[in-house]
C-alpha cells in the first residue's frame, strides 16, 4: 500500500497529529504465540469462503450429460470448457461484454475528469461555497439509487431524441443514459477522495506556479494532476469495478436485452438456460472473470482505492 503515502498520513493527521505512520505493520506483537488455533479457524473460514465459488467452477467445467448421468455430486465424467463456449455463443456474451466496455470506459474517464476538476477547485482554491459543495457531492453518492429511479426514468423518457439517434425516440434504452447517471452518481465519491488527496499536497507547489504566472488550468493540469497519479490509478481501478458491477441503472434504463452489460444480463441467465445449471455456472464465471482479472492485476490499486476512500471520517 506504499503507493498512497501522502493522503493517509494527512488524513490520519486529523485525528492523531503526528509523524507519518505508513508501513508500521506488525512488529513486536508480544511474545511469539501459538497460532495453531488461529490457523484452524482461518482455514475453516477460508473453506467456507471458497466453497460457493468452487462449486460454481466445478459445475461449470462438467458437461451436462455427465452430470445427468452421474449426478451433480459426483466426480465422474469429463471436465472441459465446453459450457463456457456454449454459454458464450448461445447466451450472446460477446455482445454483453462489449456493452460493458461501452458503458464502463466512458463513465470512468468522465468520472475522473470531472471529479479531479471539482476536487482541485474545492481543495486548492479558497472560495465561499467550496465546503458546502463538497458536502453536497459527498452526500449524493450515499443515497440509495432507488430514491432517484422514478424521476430519472421519466426525465429520460420525456427527453425526446430523433429516431436516427435513439430507436426509442428518447434517452431510454441508450448507453448514454446509463453512462450519465453512473457518472453523476460516482463523481461525488471520487471528488471527496481526490480533494482529500490534493489538500495534502503542499500549497507551495501552486504558489510557485502562480508567481510564474501560471493560470488555474495549468496549475491543475500540469502540476496537481500529475502528482495525483497514484490516487487517480486507485480511483480508476475502483470505479472500473464499481461501474462494471453496477446492476441497477442498466436494469432500469435499458429494455433491449442485447444492450445489457454483463452484470445486468446475469439476471436473465436462468431464463435463458432454464435448469441447465452447468451453463448457468459457466455464464456466471464468464461474468466474474473480468473482475477477477482486474483484481489479480491491479489488486494494490483497488485496495488502495478502498482504503483511500475510508481513511477520513
Amino acid at each position, binding site marked *: 500500500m506504499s503507493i498512497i503515502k501522502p493522503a493517509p498520513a494527512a488524513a490520519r493527521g486529523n485525528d492523531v497529529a503526528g509523524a507519518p505512520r*505508513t508501513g508500521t505493520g506488525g512488529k513486536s506483537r508480544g511474545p511469539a504465540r501459538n497460532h495453531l488455533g488461529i490457523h484452524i479457524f482461518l482455514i475453516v473460514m477460508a473453506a467456507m469462503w471458497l466453497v460457493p465459488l468452487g*462449486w460454481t467452477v466445478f459445475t461449470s467445467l462438467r458437461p451436462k450429460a455427465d452430470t445427468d448421468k452421474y449426478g451433480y455430486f459426483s466426480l465422474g465424467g469429463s471436465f472441459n470448457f465446453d459450457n463456457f463456449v456454449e454459454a458464450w455463443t448461445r447466451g450472446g456474451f460477446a455482445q454483453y461484454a462489449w456493452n460493458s466496455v461501452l458503458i464502463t470506459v466512458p463513465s470512468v474517464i468522465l468520472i475522473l475528469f470531472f471529479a479531479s476538476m471539482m476536487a482541485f477547485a474545492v481543495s486548492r482554491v*479558497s472560495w465561499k461555497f467550496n465546503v458546502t459543495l463538497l458536502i453536497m457531492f459527498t452526500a449524493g453518492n450515499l*443515497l440509495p439509487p*432507488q430514491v432517484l429511479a*422514478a424521476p430519472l426514468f421519466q426525465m429520460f423518457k420525456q427527453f425526446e431524441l430523433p429516431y436516427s439517434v435513439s430507436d426509442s425516440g428518447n434517452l431510454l434504452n441508450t448507453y448514454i443514459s446509463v453512462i*450519465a447517471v453512473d457518472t453523476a452518481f460516482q463523481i461525488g465519491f471520487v471528488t471527496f477522495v481526490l480533494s482529500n488527496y490534493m489538500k495534502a499536497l503542499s500549497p507551495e507547489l501552486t504558489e510557485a506556479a502562480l508567481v510564474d504566472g501560471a493560470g488555474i488550468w495549468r496549475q491543475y493540469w500540469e502540476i496537481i494532476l500529475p502528482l495525483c497519479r497514484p490516487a487517480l490509478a486507485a480511483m480508476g481501478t475502483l470505479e472500473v469495478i464499481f461501474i462494471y458491477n453496477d446492476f441497477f441503472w442498466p436494469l432500469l434504463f435499458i429494455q433491449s436485452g442485447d444492450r445489457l452489460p454483463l452484470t445486468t444480463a446475469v439476471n436473465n441467465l436462468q431464463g435463458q438456460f432454464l435448469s441447465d445449471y452447468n451453463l448457468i455456472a459457466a455464464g*456466471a464465471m464468464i461474468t466474474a472473470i473480468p473482475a477477477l482479472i482486474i483484481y489479480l492485476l491491479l489488486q494494490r490499486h483497488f485496495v488502495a482505492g478502498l482504503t483511500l476512500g475510508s481513511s477520513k471520517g
Partner: protein
Amino acid sequence: MSTSSDTTTAGVRGAKQAPAGRVRRLSGRDKWVLGFMVGVPTLIQLVLVWIPTLLSAALSFTRWNGLSLTDIKSAGVANYQFIVNDYPPFWPAVQHNVLWLVFLALIATPLGLLLAILLDQNIRGTKVYQSIFFTPVMLSLALIGVIWQLFYNRDSGLLNFLLGTGGTPQAVDWFGDSSVNIWAALVAATWRHAGYVMILYLAGLKGVDPTLREAAQIDGANAVQTFFRVIFPAMRPVNVIIIVITVIESLRAFDIVYVINRGTNGLELISALVIQNLVGEGQVIGVGSALAVILLVISLVPITFYLSRAFGKDKEA
C-alpha cells in the same frame, strides 16, 4: 448552464479567508476557468442526483400512471396512507431491512473485524487468506446471488447434498422457501460484506501507532483489553466509515434479492418495492415515489452522521 456558472464564479472571491494564502488574486480568465471546473460537475450532480431526489418527493404526493405529464393528479398523503395501511408487503419489507441491518451489524461486520485482527498478527499465509476473503468483494451482488443460487438449489445445490437431504423430500429450496430465504440471502450478503470490512480494518490496524500498543502492554493490559481500550478507539475514523457502510448497505440491499425473485415471497425489501411499483404493468409512480421517500428519509440518518464526522472539523477550522 450559463446561469449556473455565473453564480459559481460570483462565489469565487480571491483571498476570502484563505489561511495559507493559497490564491491571492484570480484573473478574469481564471474565474471563468474555475467557473467551468466547478460549474460542469455541479450541474451534472444537480440535474441527475439532487433534482430527481426532490422530484421523487414531489411525485410521492401525486397519483400518476407514468404516461403523460398532464395525467399527474395531486393526491395529498394518500400514497403514504395506502402504504402504511393497505399495502401488504410494506411492513414485511421494513422488518427485512431492519433484519438486514442487525445481521450485518452483529454478524458480518464483527466477523470482518475478527478476520482483520487475526490476519494482522504475523501469521503465515496471511496474504493468501486475505485474497480469499477479499475475492467476493470484487463480484457484483447480482452475480453473488447467482453463485449462491447454484449452491442453495433444491435439486442440484451443494448445500442440500452436504446436509444429506439432497434428492430427498426434505431437501430445502433455500432461496425459494419464504421461511428461510431471507437468512440464506443474508449469509450470501455476509460473504461479501465481511471481506469488505476486513480490508478496511486491516488498513486501519496498520495505521494505529504501535507505541500505543506497547504502552498498554507495559501497563499490564492483556491482548483483549489492549484491543478494546486502546486499539479500537484509536481507529475511530475507520469505525465511522464501517458504521456508515453497514447501515447504507442494508438500506441499499437490492441486487441480490432482485436476482433471486425480484424481492417477493419472503425477500421483500423497501428498495425492491420501489422498483416493483415503477416498472411492469400498472405503474403506480406515486406509490413507488412515496416508498422512495421513506427510504430517503431513513438514509438521511447515516448520511448526516457521516457528513458531520467527515466535515465537522473542516467547518470549525
